[in-house]
């Protein structure tokens, strides 16, 4: 007999959330991590109790965007672990990087699966909204989150590039087969709102944001408020949609 108590603990720990939003795309480099960080901060500063979880297990980056030094800042151990609070905000942040010392984690899928189950079963969130940064591809990270979270509502991210749109399209079929209903679409690195609308029609997803190429974004890496200020003007629809669900 082998019973994994983590699966039962996870059910209980994730039940505190009113909404769980994985930020997903099959292609890398489309802006998932940037969007997850900025969106979490925008909502936290609007008074929502937000948790941000970095599930890019082998190559976690969210702490770099948020400017959190994982060597000096650590989650507190208290009947489990309490996520790190970001500066003056109420944003709760959790990442495997706190335990890998900002190194690459050369983990196979089974280890990734284990690490995710371990993190989810011991983290004590007090937030009501969980935003999850995921790696590209469609492997253990995405499969775990859609099977462990109750009613996950992913935000799909794409750029206007053919490669990105084509691969998003084919991944939507799998999500649908898994019974997952996306919250909507964010088109990043697009110069035209018309183009964003066209893409959202092709993919049959509600357009939640259309974000242009932002010259100053590179300078905002590690400065969470600057990052938020840069992206927020383009994400009002995404923010409103989430607020409506969380405050219901």
């Amino acid at each position, binding site marked *: *007999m*082998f*019973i*994994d*108590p*983590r699966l*039962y*603990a996870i*059910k*209980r720990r994730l039940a505190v959330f009113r909404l769980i939003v994985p930020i997903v795309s099959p292609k890398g480099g489309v802006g998932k991590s940037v969007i997850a960080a900025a969106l979490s901060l925008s909502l936290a500063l609007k008074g929502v109790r937000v948790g941000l979880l970095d599930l890019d297990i082998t190559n976690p980056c969210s702490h770099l965007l948020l400017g959190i030094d994982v060597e000096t800042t650590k989650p507190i*151990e*208290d*009947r*489990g*672990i309490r996520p790190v609070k970001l500066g003056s905000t109420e944003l709760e942040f959790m990442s*495997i990087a706190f*335990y*890998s*010392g900002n*190194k*690459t*984690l*050369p*983990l*196979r899928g089974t*280890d*990734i699966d*284990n*690490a995710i189950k*371990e*993190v989810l*079963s*011991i983290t*004590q969130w007090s937030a009501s909204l969980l935003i999850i940064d995921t790696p590209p591809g469609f492997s253990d990270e995405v499969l775990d989150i859609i099977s462990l979270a109750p009613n996950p509502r992913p935000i799909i991210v794409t750029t206007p590039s053919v490669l990105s749109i084509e691969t998003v399209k084919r991944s939507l079929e799998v999500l649908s087969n898994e019974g997952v209903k996306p919250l909507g679409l964010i088109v990043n690195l697009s110069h035209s709102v018309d183009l964003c609308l066209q893409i959202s029609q092709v993919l049959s997803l509600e357009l939640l944001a259309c974000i242009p190429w932002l010259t100053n974004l590179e300078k905002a890496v590690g400065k969470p408020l600057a990052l938020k200020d840069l992206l927020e003007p383009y994400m009002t629809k995404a923010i409103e949609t989430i607020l409506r669900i969380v405050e219901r």
Partner: protein
Amino acid sequence: MHEWALAEAITVTIEYEARKRGSRTIELVEVVVGELQSIDREVFEFALKELIASLRERGIDVRKVDIEFEEAKFKCFRCGYQWNLSEVGISEHEREAIHFIPDVAKVYIRCPKCGSHDFEIVAGRGVYIKRLEFG
């Protein structure tokens, strides 16, 4: 002190399984605790006792709990070599990180023979229930 979270996972599991079966008595729970979790045995036993007492208040009676400790064992995917924790030695700081998420062992530990990070944690990784006997 995340012993409490681990103990809680055990009792949540017991409660769920008991209610699913409509059973109010659990004769025996056998728990295995892997070495990588670096658990403080006393704290873990105390937490488990407290949580089982509160289970009893909710009508579920656990008669006996056995805790078994399992030594960590590793096997290299690249060269096949097998070893245990004492052979490699890790710092206090590394042990602390690993005790939260045992899989980060792959960052700090390398095969003593070929240096690879690509190995299997054959035993002693985590906490699981080996046996659950209903009354």
